[in-house]
């Protein structure tokens, strides 16, 4: 009787060094795929500041606008920041727009002018695209009757500002210093 051969259980016995090798290769492959993704999505972000000048025809210049921290100045700054936040948060740049900062107010034949700093973050190779889009968004929104802000025809486009200059503008308010009274923990 032909005895069928007994099939030995084929045990795949990998040598330990082969297991280590395969594991290392898998980890390396994952790192090569995920690493650049994380880098470009998270770390390749740069912050860019643009300076803008907006017209506010509905508000006349008031000498109190030149008084540091006057209520009229603080309230109008807040109103303008809220308006610009609203415009960009509803736009295609809502993921890139960070915030706006109102610098000075200047008197003008038709009301008031405000100097604004806009802050965006994006991957370093998309700077020009962002600027063009931001200009388009500003022009579209400020031409409509919905906004009390209007384009300053003498400075119609955003102007790039370097970090040091931006920091100078952001810190040009007087008297910001130690938190007082110290916050009780």
């Amino acid at each position, binding site marked *: 009787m032909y005895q069928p051969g007994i099939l030995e259980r084929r045990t795949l016995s990998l040598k330990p060094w082969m297991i280590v090798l395969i594991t290392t290769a898998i980890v390396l492959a994952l790192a090569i795929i995920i690493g650049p993704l994380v880098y470009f999505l998270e770390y390749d972000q740069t912050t860019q500041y643009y300076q803008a000048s907006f017209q506010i025809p509905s508000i006349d210049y008031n000498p109190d606008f030149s*008084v*540091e*921290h006057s209520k009229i100045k*603080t309230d109008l700054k807040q109103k303008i920041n809220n308006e610009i936040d609203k415009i960009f948060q509803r736009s295609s740049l809502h993921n890139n727009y960070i915030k706006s900062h109102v610098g000075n107010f200047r008197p003008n034949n038709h009301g008031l002018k405000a100097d604004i700093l806009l802050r965006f973050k994006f991957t370093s190779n998309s700077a020009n695209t962002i600027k063009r889009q931001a200009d388009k968004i500003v022009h579209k929104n400020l031409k409509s009757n919905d906004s009390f802000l209007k384009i300053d025809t003498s400075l119609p486009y955003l102007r790039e500002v370097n970090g*040091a*200059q931006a*920091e*100078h*503008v*952001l*810190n*040009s*308010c*007087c*008297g*910001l*210093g*130690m*938190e*007082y009274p110290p916050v009780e923990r």
Partner: protein
Amino acid sequence: VAHGQIANKAAWPWQASLQMDGMHFCGASLISADWLLTAAHCFDTHKNPKLWMASFGTTLRSPLMRRKVLSIIVHENYAAHKHEDDIAVVKLSTPVLFSENVHRVCLPGATFEVLPESKVFVTGWGGLKANGPFPNTLRQVEVEVISSDVCNRVYVYGGAVSSGMICAGFLTGERDACEGDSGGPLVIVQDQNIWYLIGIVSWGIGCGKENKPGLYTKVTHYRDWIKSKTNI
């Protein structure tokens, strides 16, 4: 300052040090990108702006920024070794770029009122006590405004406190400005955590001595003079 603490970074970003040959001589306050406000008596012996340098940041040995001095304007009525009109403005050779760690203090309007017992801060690199060591790191101390009536009592300063001065400290002594703090700021906080410059460290007898609080040039009293010299 006597009986004070080390100041945190960026706590007093307007504080400047006026130095000659790298040595701290007086404090000063940044009131615009290119003007400092300080005490006239700092220049009793050296009036040549070329001898002076201003530095910014909380440490003297490694400051954040340095600027040469372009000009020094001392109050016309100031007389050396007197206490009246102890105020001067210093123009920097090039403006500073404001940052979180270096920016200006607010100047009060001429009608700004500071009541007795108001809590105020004086900061500087002056001695930790009379004839004591000088620190490398900026120090601060909280003191209280004392009315001129109290400060003019016989056992305090017996009438030497004029309308252009503010008295601040404690009759019990201890917390006080000291030599080397001269020219530095006495500031008060208003709503929204905004600090206003109300005094310039000017004179006093000793440091932290009983019944001998510090005397400061009253900034509001010289508001028009400051504007006439700096257009701020």
